[in-house]
C-alpha cells in the first residue's frame, strides 16, 4: 500500500515521505524522500532510496541500514539525520 508522511525533523527541516510497502510481510517496495533539507552529495538521496527497496519496515533495521549507508558513502545531511529519516518513513505505516 502507498502512504505519505510529513515530518518536521527536530531542529531540522520538513521531510516528506511517500512510501509503498507490503502490508503482509512489512517490506518496503519503494520510498521517495523529499523535503527542504540539504544532503551532500545531493545524488546520495537517490542511492538511499534504492538502498531501502526491499528493506524491512522496522525501526532498528532501518536506522542501522541508513546509518551504515551514510557513513560508508560519507554523506552529509543538514537539516536531516538518520533518526529523522527513519521516523519519517515509519510515520507512513498505518
Amino acid at each position, binding site marked *: 500500500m502507498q502512504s505519505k508522511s510529513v515530518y518536521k525533523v527536530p531542529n531540522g527541516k520538513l521531510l*516528506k515521505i511517500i512510501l509503498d510497502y507490503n502490508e503482509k510481510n512489512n517490506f518496503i517496495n519503494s520510498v521517495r*524522500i523529499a523535503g527542504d533539507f*540539504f544532503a*551532500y552529495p545531493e545524488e546520495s*538521496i537517490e542511492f538511499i532510496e534504492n538502498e531501502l527497496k526491499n528493506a524491512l519496515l522496522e525501526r532498528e533495521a532501518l536506522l542501522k541500514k541508513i546509518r551504515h549507508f551514510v557513513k560508508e558513502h560519507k554523506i*552529509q545531511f543538514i537539516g536531516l539525520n538518520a533518526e529523522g529519516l527513519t521516523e519519517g518513513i515509519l510515520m507512513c505505516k498505518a
Partner: protein
Amino acid sequence: MKEQWRLLQTGFNTASTNMAIDRAVLVANSEGKVPPTVRFYAWKPPAISIGYFQSLAEEIDLDACKTHGVDYVRRITGGGAVFHESELTYSIVIPESHSQIPKNVLESYGRICGAVMKGLSNLGIESKYAPINDIIAYGKKISGNAQTRKARTVLQHGTVLTDVDVDKMFLLLKVPNEKIKDKLIADVKQRVTSVRNILEKDLPFEKIAQAMKAGFEEEFNIELVEGELTEAEIALTQKFEKECFGAKDWNHRR
C-alpha cells in the same frame, strides 16, 4: 594587491537561464577556466524555484503559475521553495580549497552569509545569520540561501528580498493542509521582511547590487572586477538550459 574575483551582473533572465548560468559558472570554475565569481541577478518573468529534493507537484500549484505568468524551476541546491519576484539574487562560485572558504559546510554558509550581511549593513540594515541558511533583520527573514558542492567547487546562491507579497506567494505554493492556510499566511507575514519594509522606501536594484558588491569585497578582502560570461560558459548555459533546467524530466523528476 588584493585578490581579484569576477563580478557578473546578468540582469533579468528566465528561471531556467538563471539556474543554467549558475551551473555553467560552477563547471567553468571547477575546470580552472574562470576565477572565483560573484553574480547578481533577477528573474523575469517572476518564478518559483524549488529545492533539489522537493516534489514539484507537492510544492507548486502549476495551474496558478500559468494563470499568473509565473515560471518554475528545480535548483541543483537543496532547501525550500522560493518565490522570486522582488529581490536581488546573488551567487558565488569558488573552489572548495580556497583559503576564504571553510571546509565545513555549515561554517561556509555563515561565512558567505557574512558578505550578504555586510551588504545589508551598507544599506543601513543590521542583520544576523540564522543557521541553517537564513539571514534575519529585526527578527524577520530577509534572505534565504542554499549551497551545493560539486567537483570540489562551492556554489551558493541566495536572495535579498527587496519587497514581499506573501498573498501572491501562497496563490502559487501548495500547503500541506489547506485548512490552516490562512494561519500559515499570517505566520509568514510575521516572519518575513524586505529592504522596502525596513527602509520604508524603494531602492533601485543597482543601488542594492552596489551595496552587496562592497559587502562581498569587505567580507573576503578582495576586489570584484566586472566581467562577462566566457563563450564556453554561454555554450554551457545553453546546454544546461536545454537539457536540464528547461526540461520536464528535470523539473518534474520528484
